[in-house]
């Protein structure tokens, strides 16, 4: 068996919701059945957009991908999707397992509402990475998102559980309204990190240029859970090597005191 490969023939004229193209849905389908799947509300079929090759739906590849392909891997529970190139909004939204690798840049709301599995973005991520959709009470609820590049504003907005790793810089309001979970930023953070943070951890490699007045300095601490996190990342895969070692010595700021104050910003020492 060879990986089920969908090669984008040409740039679509508008955004296309490709959420049906997940291993769960394509498993056991022959080439003709895959080609006949309707995408979006305008009646486009897979064959209109993609050249289909291979038959192993557990190892899918989307070639020549574009930011006009949205909802890649939406709700998937198993298998792997490798996106060669960038992708549009909502990559990995609501995913419940499996793994997505985007070799390029991902649009906004990547990993929103995901509950398990792994989303790896080797380029940059847009705004609301792992964040909540408008009107939703929670963003990411489990799993791991790893971004090799930068992330936009409002990363981890209303995040409930899980781990977000960002190797580069992140925009404003990182961890805004976060409910729980952990976000690690190896680069710099924009203005107002942890705005309205309820619980959860912002783990920063660099001291933010300024913190909200509603965060209080707790002093320097050695926190044991960081050792567990470090070991878990080491155990999982060398993919996370760029984020290691974490160390466990941090300066801790508790907050947002305007929202309960049980969250924390940890700055690695």
């Amino acid at each position: 068996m060879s990986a089920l490969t969908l090669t984008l023939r040409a740039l679509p004229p508008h955004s296309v919701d490709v959420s049906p193209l997940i291993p769960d849905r394509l498993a056991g389908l022959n080439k003709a059945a895959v080609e006949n799947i309707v995408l979006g509300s305008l009646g486009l079929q897979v064959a209109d957009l993609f050249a289909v090759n291979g038959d192993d739906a557990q190892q899918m590849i989307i070639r020549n991908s574009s930011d006009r392909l949205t909802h890649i891997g939406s709700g998937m529970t198993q298998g792997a999707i490798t996106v060669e190139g960038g992708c549009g909004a909502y990559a990995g939204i609501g995913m419940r397992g499996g793994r997505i690798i985007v070799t390029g840049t991902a649009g906004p709301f990547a990993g929103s509402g995901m509950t398990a599995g792994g989303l790896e973005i080797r380029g940059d991520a847009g705004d609301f990475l792992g964040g909540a959709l408008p009107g939703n009470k929670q963003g990411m609820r489990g799993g791991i998102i790893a971004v090799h590049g930068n992330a936009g504003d409002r990363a981890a907005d209303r995040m409930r559980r899980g781990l977000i790793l960002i190797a580069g810089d992140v925009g404003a309001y990182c961890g805004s309204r976060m409910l729980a979970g952990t976000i690690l930023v190896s680069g710099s953070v924009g203005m107002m990190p942890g705005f309205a943070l309820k619980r959860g951890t912002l783990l920063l490699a660099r001291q933010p240029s300024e913190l909200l007045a509603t965060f209080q300095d707790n002093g320097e601490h050695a926190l044991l859970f960081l050792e567990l996190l470090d070991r878990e990342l080491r155990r999982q895969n060398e993919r996370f090597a760029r984020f290691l070692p974490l160390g466990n010595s941090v300066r801790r700021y508790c907050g947002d005191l305007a929202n309960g104050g049980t969250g924390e910003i940890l700055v690695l020492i």
Partner: protein
Amino acid sequence: MIINGVAIDDTFAEAFGMRATRILITALDLKWAYHAARAATGFATSVIGCGCEAGIECELSADESPDGRPGVTVLLFAVSSKELAKQVERRVGQCVLTAPTSAVFSGIEGEPINLGKNLRFFGDGYQNSKVIGGRRYWRIPVMDGEFLCEETTGMVRAVGGGNVLVLARGTAEALAACEAAIAAMSKVRGAIMPFPGGVVRSGSKVGSKYKALTASTNDAYCPTLRGAVKSELSPDVGAVLEIVIDGLTESDVRNAMRAGIAAACKVGSAGGVLRISAGNYGGKLGQFHFRLHEIVK
């Protein structure tokens, strides 16, 4: 059967099904891990009066432990899942949470029972949880920083009450043989010897002349009752000591018994060891029978 002058009785140890768990206790250094573990396994010699039987299984190096610090593993055994859960929570709460620098983790897969799930409320709302690698940990603020504990530990079916009786010319000889046996048995993973120093002198029989008691002294093995009761002791036996073994599996108990008997026999008749025997209830009460001759074969 005679080994090094020591007679091995053609009998068997009778053991029972129990529920057990393994927890890992780590600390800044081994000394403080032992302080916590010894407290948590204190007053845990027999389910008859202690609620559970517990002991330190082995040491963990920094490389082996979940948090990169040295520690020890502890096994706890109880007669029911409910009692085990109660004992684990109570002992960890009073003896591990309280010990400086300590942390506690599950050391075995099985049906989950609470470890830190309820202890977290000690944090009075300031506790935080982290899910790492699919396991939930609680961070409870305490005066030396944070107490880190896993939410649950695994409970498994286990074997309790394996035993070896060492019959010797006198107390000193019996004790020396038991110390050698315990040293060897302590190396067996998955088994503990819950009594003080691993050795018990007050072996018991089922029942008593007093209605309130369910167990009483094992008169057949008491040297001072020879002649007064139907004794199992020949005239040259001056003291009997027992080693009780609890194991996660039947094979753990068997391996520990084998190691212990071999070590006691190595002391031999020259060291005053005369017989090795085992305690049973006629084979009608316990599911597990450990025949001595099969074990030492």
